[in-house]
């Protein structure tokens, strides 16, 4: 089903390629020219010659990979029109994490929006998602099944606070991805009136500091390192760490740890159980089912291209609603990351 839109963008093993502009969007392999939607490791990789992204995404890449992750970098302001050859591109907020953007690509009267990962609901730690009028909308499908309806994040935080009251002797260990989710959980806790120091694993430190330097107040953060004889001070404390740290010796230094995990996957009990999660928090940085279809209805593009996740269900929904849709079968994007 080749359409003329494919002359403007189409998938290649390296990533989404734009022939008239000779660039890739979120390439998974090193390329000459890359446009990056956001700083998560599966979208933003080191080793490209030239990288264009929002200033915040470039900062995040520099924090993660070092300032020399690319030969040259070029920041893009939200809303600024930038010409690359005959193509003009524009970055729009995606509401996913700090600095995240959708990239609109325009050429010969057609416009395609590669939305990267996005979330339409408000998030105090990043600019709000902006629907962009376009011919082709490229959407993710991480939570594209009608079983995924994320509750209000504030009500999940209320459950966390209730658990802290009920288990004042236990350290509450919250698994949260180090870019975006961790800072959002902390900010939500502050919004709910939690003013105690929050303890963070070393892997979160630089990004939390960066968020704070960008004006996102996270309150008092302390390193989650347990000195000898000080285990007791973590009773009833909130400790955040990356999910990978939960398999490590680090967890057991805390008093009777209560394992929690902040993720959209947590709406499925079996998942929570398999991971040994006692307190699942359904907090996601991706659109849920209702938000995916509302976004598509609102933009009402001529075509919908679906990247990673549960493509089948979203394509099925589009077919039922007479919207032309196809999966792109992109590889290299982490399905499980949220």
């Amino acid at each position, binding site marked *: 089903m080749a359409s003329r839109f494919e002359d403007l963008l189409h998938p290649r093993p390296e990533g989404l390629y734009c022939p008239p502009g000779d660039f890739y969007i979120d390439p998974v392999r090193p390329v000459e020219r890359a446009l990056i939607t956001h700083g998560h490791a599966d979208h933003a990789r080191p080793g490209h010659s030239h990288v264009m992204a929002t200033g915040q995404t470039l900062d995040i890449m520099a924090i993660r990979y070092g300032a020399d992750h690319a030969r040259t970098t070029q920041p893009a302001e939200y809303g600024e029109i930038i010409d690359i050859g005959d193509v003009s591109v524009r970055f729009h907020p995606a509401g996913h994490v700090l600095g995240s953007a959708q990239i609109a690509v325009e050429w010969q009267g057609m416009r395609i929006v590669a939305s990267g990962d996005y979330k339409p609901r408000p998030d105090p730690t990043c600019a709000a998602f902006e629907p962009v009028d376009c011919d082709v909308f490229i959407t993710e499908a991480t939570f594209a*099944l*009608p*079983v*995924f*309806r994320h*509750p*209000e994040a504030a*009500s999940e935080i209320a459950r966390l606070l209730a658990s802290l009251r*009920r288990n004042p002797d236990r350290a509450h*260990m919250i698994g949260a991805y180090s870019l975006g989710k961790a800072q959002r959980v902390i900010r939500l806790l502050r919004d709910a009136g939690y003013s105690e120091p929050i303890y963070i694993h070393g892997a979160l430190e630089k990004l939390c500091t960066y968020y704070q330097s960008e004006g996102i107040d996270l309150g008092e953060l302390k390193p989650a390192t347990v000195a000898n004889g000080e285990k007791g001070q973590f009773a009833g404390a909130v400790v955040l760490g990356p999910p990978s740290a*939960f*398999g*490590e*010796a*680090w*967890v*057991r230094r805390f008093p*009777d*740890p209560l*394992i929690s995990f902040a993720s959209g996957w947590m*709406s*499925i*009990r*079996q998942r*929570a*159980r*398999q*991971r*040994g*999660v*006692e*307190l*699942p928090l359904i907090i996601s940085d991706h659109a849920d089912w209702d938000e995916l279809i509302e976004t598509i209805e609102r933009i009402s593009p001529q075509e919908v291209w679906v990247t990673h996740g*549960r493509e*089948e*269900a979203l394509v*099925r*929904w589009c077919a*039922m609603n007479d919207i032309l849709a196809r999966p792109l079968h992109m590889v290299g994007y982490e399905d499980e990351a949220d």
Partner: protein
Amino acid sequence: MRRFAELLETLVLTPSRNGKIRLMVDYFRSVNDPERGLALAAITRELDIPSVKPALLRQLVSVRVDEELFRLSYDYVGDLAETIALIWPVKGGEREGRNDVPTLSEVVAELLAASRREGPALVKGWLDRLDPSGRYALIKLVTGGFRIGVSSRLAKQALAEFGEVPIEEIEELWHGLEPPYESLFAWLEGDAEKPESAALAPFRPVMLSHPVEDADFTRLDPADFAGEWKWDGIRVQATVDQGVKRLYSRTGDDISGAFPDLVDALTFEGTVDGELLIARPLADASGIEIGTFSDLQQRLNRKRLTAKMLKDHPAFMRVYDVLFDGREDVRALSFRERRQRLEKRVKQFDPRRFDLSPLVEFPSWESLAAHRAEPPLPMIEGVMIKRWDAPYLAGRPRGEWFKWKRDPFLIDAVLLYAQRGHGKRSGFYSDYTFGVWREEGSARELVPVGKAYFGFTDEELKKIDRYVRNNTIERFGPVRSVRADAEKGLVLEVAFEGVNRSTRHKSGVAMRFPRISRLRWDKPPSEADTLEAVEALITGPAVDA
């Protein structure tokens, strides 16, 4: 319903026993009658409401959700109740803040009043009013598929802690009570007298034993004690009270429904204590043949009993004590006197269904040790030592009954996979799958034969954990595959109580009660045991003398 749903959800996710008890105690404290009593009945599976078939629920969903989207979702989630709970589309969006959520009492009362045809419409109405976790609880409730990792024993333990009374008192009362248990809660809260046990054929708390210790043999005089075989079946209490017949497990669960063949054969008046076994009549009708533990397992946890099952695996009780002789409570009498009464009584029982557990005569502890070392039947797992003048006491009194189990079987196996633990063991690889060598010609491969997660000290746990981390070859979520071949691997000495054939395990065997008995850091994995050696321990059908 909201609080009940929350209780279920937290119970399912809380790994520790004490944590579960705490959740239930909190719930009983903070929720009023009759809601809490109905929740208790749901957890203990005593709630008898007309059920709604899962197929009907699917029908309800198919009206609102595209079949294909449902199929994709069900594929992904894996559990029907959970899929329906999550996918149920609610007109008008958010449920938050609604105050017309049905209570558990409302749900139960309306279901009881409804005809079978009206059930689905009621459920549909409730699904609309509940949030996903409420819907999940409701579906589990009406389909009767309640598996939340809480036994009725644990619920009774929570009641005991809630009311600060011994659990035996709850167990003894239990079968005279009905949901929503208002008189029970009133008593536990100190607002009323203990409810009278009015029901016929109630459960009587059983007497339990302690493991015998080396020091006991020098301290105790063998002349004061009787010896008995310790049977490897299931401890049961059979009771007949003015025609009402019941079979109870040792924790007071009524298991009459699972053993109608045995219950029908209860023709005496009174209460006896003994071991449930499987026994088939001999071809020449000269006696019976006792089945194996795996025969008995065939009869456990069956939803449906077929005629064939009843015929091929007949239930049998080997009795060893009497609590009520006729209508007379004989628990205060000595074991000697009770035994005399029992011997007389058993003569009136149907010999195809009941017999008397024989005494083991022993002049000295050495002689008892010799009996223990050579039991006449594989269904014997040791000996019991009972004080001749002990009354029948509820619970586990000191110094009256002792168990002296045979030594466990031991094999040397190799660690294959390790899984992360929960709660206090979070962050430790504490659940171990181990394997032995399967030999085919000159080819050898390690096949998993079991899983164990206790038997080691905290110190040893740390060492195994370090070993797992340093020798990981693959990771799948919380599980690590550990290097195990002829040259390199960790040998674990595993103790277990027996081996059954199993079609579910790749190796074809399933161990009973496996635990780690020793870490064999010194032993090369090539010298671990073979599958053949494990298979040799499978106990076949035995002939009863």
